[in-house]
């Protein structure tokens, strides 16, 4: 770990699709999986490359952007303030459902609590008042209920299926 006064330490991360990322230490340490890698390998060399076999380059770039901004917000004492909300809203606005899914899978694998909370809330908002078919398409789920099982659930909560948004 770098000490005060020393040059900023860079962490090397390698994605599933073979891309190498150079990330500032405080940002990389937001990833619980990276943090525990170094906790468990205390004498790892500074140029150790941490392999991330479950994450590809695109979502990782998105995650680094998010964590970098949030590390700065915290350093500036802006955590929880309006500018954070504004950043989050801008960040997510351009993301498609597909990108959002890749982000949450990656954030879950990397174990980044703050980002996971934010993505969870975003996905919840995108699923509110949506039809069962929309949710299946969103998550890419093959329906493996039998028709009878599905009918039973729909019947029991008939009121919850009325007036949902058009897909």
């Amino acid at each position: 770990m770098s000490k005060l006064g020393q040059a900023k330490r860079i962490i090397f991360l390698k994605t599933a699709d073979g891309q190498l990322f150079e990330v500032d230490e405080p940002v990389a340490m937001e990833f619980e999986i990276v943090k525990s890698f170094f906790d468990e390998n205390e004498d790892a060399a500074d140029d150790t490359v941490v392999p991330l076999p479950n994450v590809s380059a695109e979502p990782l770039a998105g995650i680094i952007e998010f964590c970098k901004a949030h590390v700065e917000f915290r350093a500036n004492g802006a955590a929880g303030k309006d500018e954070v909300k504004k950043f989050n809203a801008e960040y997510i606005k351009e993301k498609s459902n597909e990108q959002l899914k890749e982000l949450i899978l990656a954030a879950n694998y990397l174990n980044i609590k703050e980002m996971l909370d934010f993505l969870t809330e975003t996905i919840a908002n995108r699923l509110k008042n949506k039809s069962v078919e929309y949710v299946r398409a969103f998550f890419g789920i093959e329906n493996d209920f039998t028709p009878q099982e599905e009918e039973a659930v729909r019947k029991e909560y008939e009121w919850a299926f009325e007036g949902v948004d058009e897909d």
Partner: protein
Amino acid sequence: MDMSVVLPEECLSQITSLTSPRDACRLSAVSPFFKSAADSDAVWETFLPSDYEGIISNSASSSLLSTCSSKKELYFHLSHKPIFINSGNMSFALEKESGKVCCMVGAKAGISVTWGSKSYWTWPSLPESRFPEVAELKPVCWFEVKGKIETKLLSPETTYAAYLVFKFADSRNGFDTRPVELCFYIGGMEEEERSKVFLDARAGAPNLSQDRGDGWMEIEIGEFFKKHGEDEGVVYNLFDFDGFSSKHGLIIEGIELRPKSV
């Protein structure tokens, strides 16, 4: 890619708990994996009021805490059938779609109906009432009902409306010829909502009261926004002071507070 095979159930439960009870019921029809996440105690615990255990254990139905096999079952129990707290004088239930708290304060606890030592009310028991006693007005010239209702059990950050739940006895008089004055405000506030309503709708007059379908009528007497951590209570007052005609036959079950539908 089927997300639900790679996303852990806790993640899915977390997403579901940030929707609403209505959404969660619909999500349980997506797939068996979704159903298991959407039906979990982790989800339904968040839809129950934060102090549900205390409220239920102080109610006449405290056994619910041990007899309900899941939080979801408990939720639907509370949304289908109110439980009774405050020595049976207050009913407590959840709005099915949202999980917001709905309360009704029975006449015995929610209204102050005496002037000096003299009561102008009788307390019959009616089979159609959820409370053991309701208040029936004896003949009076000066009519007044008032009370203060606690709001601490209500769901925070929610717009509520208060309703007078009432009906008329076979023998009734005076409420169709004159309106009653209505005033309503949040405890500690100066501002009052004031209006005049006919409790007994006449031909031609706007009928503001509604049939509840449970043997009672209701009329909205005010609305308020319940802020987080604020429970000043609400104060209401219904009166008609300058009538020379006698009134009688109004029966009050209580005052209901429930989220105002938008």
